[in-house]
């Protein structure tokens, strides 16, 4: 074996050009595979960093009529926990934000309120101190906090004495009881920026509530209980709850999903597609190398014939040739690994968002190479070596043996070469069609009208939690002053406030009532999203008023309550009315019997995107921040987002905005400052990433396929040099020879295109879930990509064909 390796190394060194091309081809293909596998391994394959993570489930409320599962109410959660037998522990969690004060600078922190049982469910011990205790879920005893390692390092310098110390959150003193280890992140989806965990303590009224769904539930399955069994049990519980509390639970089920599936479910298909894409690139590279080896084997036929004559067995010769291809593959794999080491950070940079955690790749912070990636690269390299080496090795030995008997195996070799080129074009076509579908889909996404103008708008969240401005009039005064100061800044055209910025912030929904509309049946309700804004919000965002008016400074507490609705609300609840007809209609948050006052509709606006870029807007009601009723319904907000339309680049205003906030109170943190352009970029971040990579891989595939055709035709030209000389001697014009060679590329190309189109027609359906506004069998794509690929093939064929047409017939006739 060692002898084979030694001879193999010598053979590779003897043909440095061939070796370099082969290693480079492999490095690109294996490097791309390694980089993508690093992401797939970290996100899809590596277990979550909790104890026995496969036993952790996520439980959510499910509308049986459709839609995504959503949060659950406190009373329903309590019943789920009490009645279920499938789980060891069940915990509820709720998003929570707090302002850290008492140390400079004040900072708005993201955290979670969690049941104490969450920690046994996750099975992760703290690095310092302890986790939360059940008795701390009692109001009054709940002011304890567990910190993430990152927060502890950032704000407490990693001081062990932090445990036991107090920190001021929203103006209240919380005792730090523990610090989690550095690798601990929770939750791994939905609110991925949480840096602290406090007890979920309900007052009796909230604990008994079956409305205000805000909890996400996590549970650990008992040993031996499957998700299916748990689902069956929870379905029975949901049915019992429906009978017991029909108002809140009619038509509601319980979604039980493995945590891992919940975390990666949205990106699984996209990553699988990317992995398949790089796999195809590797196959194309293999076909290319097999072709190169076939060409080289033709040149070594005499050498192999001599070896056979000297008594070498076929197996011995095949082993020798396979050793050479394995060496090549290992060299390519090594270079590919280096490329991947360099490329993975670049991938991570592509994956990074400006701050939109919701649109970020899940488990992003866990993406890294590990032993499995190295093993994958090694296996891919060796498999590749066999894949591209075996057929040429067998062919070389067979044809050398045949030649030694005085006949030629060139025709069979030509067929194999053509078959490989066909395969390359088929795979390249499949990839290119997929990539073009993604490009067209992304183009459609970009053409989506968000309902606002993205350019020159800056947004930043100002938190008042725990400050002197936390409540009612003081808060309104503060924001009035802030708006006035911001509007006076040079370069500012207008400014306004909104509680949740579209596409970046949260989305609050509520039951709504419409005056004059019959009460909905039990289990049904009228619902709408609602947003709280100040005058000039639509002007600042660049929204479009379809009828009526914007809020004005007069829409304050003393004035009649007013509301603005979006177009989706008009279509859903007043389908026969025009935007002007709706003006004067009255709506209110809550059921019709609730004490909330009716608000008159004073305007209708064009839909503005809400949570997701590609999702149509739900019915939405806008309420005036300076009117009290919504405060009573939804609670005084702990923060508002300032939106500022600038005359030019809005980034330059961020510092001035922070300065104005600080001048009002230096303990008010300003966070999540971003331009609307960044917000929109984050919103289409994942499709952009998938499109970019699929494009990169498809172009690599097209390049390799073209190189493959070029290689085959170059070889054919060299092999047929004498024939071209004869033809020229007989009077063939250069154009005749050019056409002859070009024509040779047609059969493998046509077979490849036919196979590729068939494969694409079947396989692009797998992309359906990733496409927006484009069918997986989009006729334009299927009609335009094959001609394009044909043009690429023609170019690849033209170069050797031209060379053939330029040969010197005298020299060609002297060829052996």
């Amino acid at each position: 074996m060692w002898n084979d390796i030694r001879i193999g190394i010598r053979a590779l060194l003897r043909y440095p050009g061939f070796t370099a091309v082969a290693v480079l081809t492999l490095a690109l293909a294996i490097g791309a595979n390694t980089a993508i596998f690093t992401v797939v391994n970290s996100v899809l394959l590596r277990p979550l960093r909790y104890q026995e993570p496969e036993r952790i489930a996520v439980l959510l409320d499910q509308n049986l009529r459709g839609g995504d599962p959503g949060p659950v109410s406190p009373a329903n959660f309590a019943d789920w926990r009490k009645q279920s037998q499938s789980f060891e522990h069940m915990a509820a969690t709720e998003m929570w934000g707090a302002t850290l004060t008492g140390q400079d600078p004040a900072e708005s922190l993201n955290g979670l309120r969690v049941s104490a049982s969450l920690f046994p469910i996750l099975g992760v011990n703290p690095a310092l101190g302890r986790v939360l205790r059940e008795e701390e879920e009692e109001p009054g005893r709940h002011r304890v906090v567990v910190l993430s390692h990152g927060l502890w390092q950032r704000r407490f310098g990693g001081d062990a004495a932090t445990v036991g110390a107090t920190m001021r959150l929203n103006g209240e003193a919380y005792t730090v009881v523990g610090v989690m280890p550095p690798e601990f992140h929770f939750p791994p989806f939905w609110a991925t920026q949480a840096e602290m965990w406090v007890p979920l303590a309900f007052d009796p009224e909230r604990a008994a509530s079956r409305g205000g769904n805000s909890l996400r539930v996590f549970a650990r399955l008992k040993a031996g209980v499957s998700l299916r069994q748990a689902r069956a049990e929870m379905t029975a519980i949901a049915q019992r709850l429906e009978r017991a509390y029909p108002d809140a639970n009619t038509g509601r089920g319980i979604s039980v999903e493995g945590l891992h599936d919940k975390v990666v479910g949205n990106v699984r298909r996209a990553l699988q597609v990317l992995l398949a894409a790089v796999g195809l690139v590797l196959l194309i590279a293999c076909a290319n190398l097999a072709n190169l080896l076939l060409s080289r084997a033709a040149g070594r036929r005499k050498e192999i014939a001599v070896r056979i004559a000297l008594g070498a067995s076929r197996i011995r010769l095949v082993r020798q040739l396979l050793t050479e291809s394995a060496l090549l593959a290992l060299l390519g794999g090594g270079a590919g690994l280096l490329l991947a080491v360099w490329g993975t950070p670049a991938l991570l940079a592509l994956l990074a968002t400006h701050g939109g955690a919701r649109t970020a790749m899940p488990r992003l912070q866990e993406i890294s190479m590990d032993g499995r990636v190295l093993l994958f690269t090694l296996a891919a390299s060796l498999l590749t070596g066999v894949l591209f080496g075996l057929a040429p090795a067998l062919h070389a030995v067979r044809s050398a043996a045949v030649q030694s008997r005085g006949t030629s195996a060139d025709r069979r070799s030509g067929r194999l070469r053509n078959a490989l080129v066909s395969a390359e074009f088929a795979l390249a076509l499949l990839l290119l069609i997929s990539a073009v579908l993604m490009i067209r889909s992304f183009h459609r996404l970009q053409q989506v009208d968000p309902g606002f103008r993205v350019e020159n708008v800056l947004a930043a969240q100002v938190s008042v939690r725990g400050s002197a401005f936390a409540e009612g009039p003081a808060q309104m005064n503060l924001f009035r002053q802030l708006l006035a100061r911001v509007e006076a800044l040079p370069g500012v055209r207008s400014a306004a406030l909104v509680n949740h910025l579209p596409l970046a912030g949260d989305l609050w929904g509520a039951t709504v009532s419409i005056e004059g509309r019959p009460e909905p049946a039990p289990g049904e309700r009228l619902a709408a999203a609602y947003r709280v804004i100040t005058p000039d919000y639509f002007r600042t965002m660049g929204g479009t008023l379809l009828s009526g008016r914007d809020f004005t400074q007069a829409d304050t507490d003393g004035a009649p309550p007013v509301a603005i609705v979006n177009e989706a609300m008009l279509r859903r609840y007043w389908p026969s009315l025009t935007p002007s007809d709706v003006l004067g209609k009255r709506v209110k948050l809550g059921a019709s019997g609730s004490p909330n006052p009716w608000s008159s509709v004073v305007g209708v606006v064009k839909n503005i995107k809400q949570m997701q870029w590609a999702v149509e807007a739900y019915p939405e009601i806008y309420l005036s921040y300076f009117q009290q009723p919504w405060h009573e319904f939804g609670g005084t907000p702990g923060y508002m987002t300032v939106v500022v339309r600038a005359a030019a680049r809005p980034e330059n205003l961020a510092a001035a905005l922070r300065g104005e906030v600080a001048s009002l109170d230096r303990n008010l943190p300003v966070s999540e400052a971003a331009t609307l352009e960044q917000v929109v970029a984050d919103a289409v971040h994942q499709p952009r990433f998938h499109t970019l990579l699929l494009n990169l891989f498809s172009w690599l595939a097209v390049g390799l396929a073209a190189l493959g055709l070029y290689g085959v035709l170059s070889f054919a030209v060299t092999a047929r040099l004498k024939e071209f000389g004869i033809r020229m001697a007989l009077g063939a014009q250069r154009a005749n020879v050019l056409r002859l060679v070009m024509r040779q590329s047609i059969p493998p190309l046509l077979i490849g295109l036919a196979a590729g189109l068939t494969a694409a027609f079947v396989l692009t359906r797998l992309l359906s879930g990733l496409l927006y506004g484009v069918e997986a069998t989009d006729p334009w794509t299927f009609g335009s990509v094959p001609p394009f690929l044909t043009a690429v093939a023609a170019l690849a064929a033209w170069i050797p064909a031209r060379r053939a047409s330029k040969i010197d017939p005298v020299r060609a006739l002297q060829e052996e």
Partner: protein
Amino acid sequence: MEETRKSLLRLDAVTKVFVTDEVETHALAGIHMDLKAGEYVSISGPSGCGKSTLLAILGLLDSPSHGSYVLGERPVQGLKHSERARIRNREIGFIFQAFNLIGDLTVYENVELPLTYRGMPGAERKKRVMEALEKVGMVHRVKHYPSQLSGGQQQRVAVARALGGDPLILLADEPTGNLDSANGEAVMDLLRELHRNGSTICMVTHDPRYAKHADRTIHLFDGRIVQETVEAA
């Protein structure tokens, strides 16, 4: 009688110099040659004397470095590639030592090949191909591939291919070089027969036995014509 025949090709002071790595090799030096229509000339000489170079120039596969070459009545030494190809196709028939049939084409297709470059209609091509094959006695092998024929048969097909276009001149480069003596004799008989029927033939050979078949033998040495021998009728 000989003097009244029309001149078919004429070389005046033709030289051919190959330059490689700044070394000049004079393959031909001041060749004067005149070939009449219907004449059968052989060119002989030792290896490296310039026979094949001379034949390549005569066949317009190569150009002289200096001197003039008149084929028919027109000078051809400075023609474009496409025009030279056209003349090769219509006015010159090649017979090679190694037969140079194309392995992927049948006997019929090999003979037909030069005619296809003329854009000749299919029926006319067929007529010419069959006539040419009949002349060389290979009609019964039209569907065979070269690898299915003996060397002598392959060379007969090559001769048919050269004849098919009805050229002004047949250029034969060691046509018996790859054949045994019996097949060699047969091919030489065939050429003699063609000559008797009016073909103009210029043949390169180093074998004196075959050179004697020609009306006239030109002896080359170091790129120069050192002797011309006229064979007795």
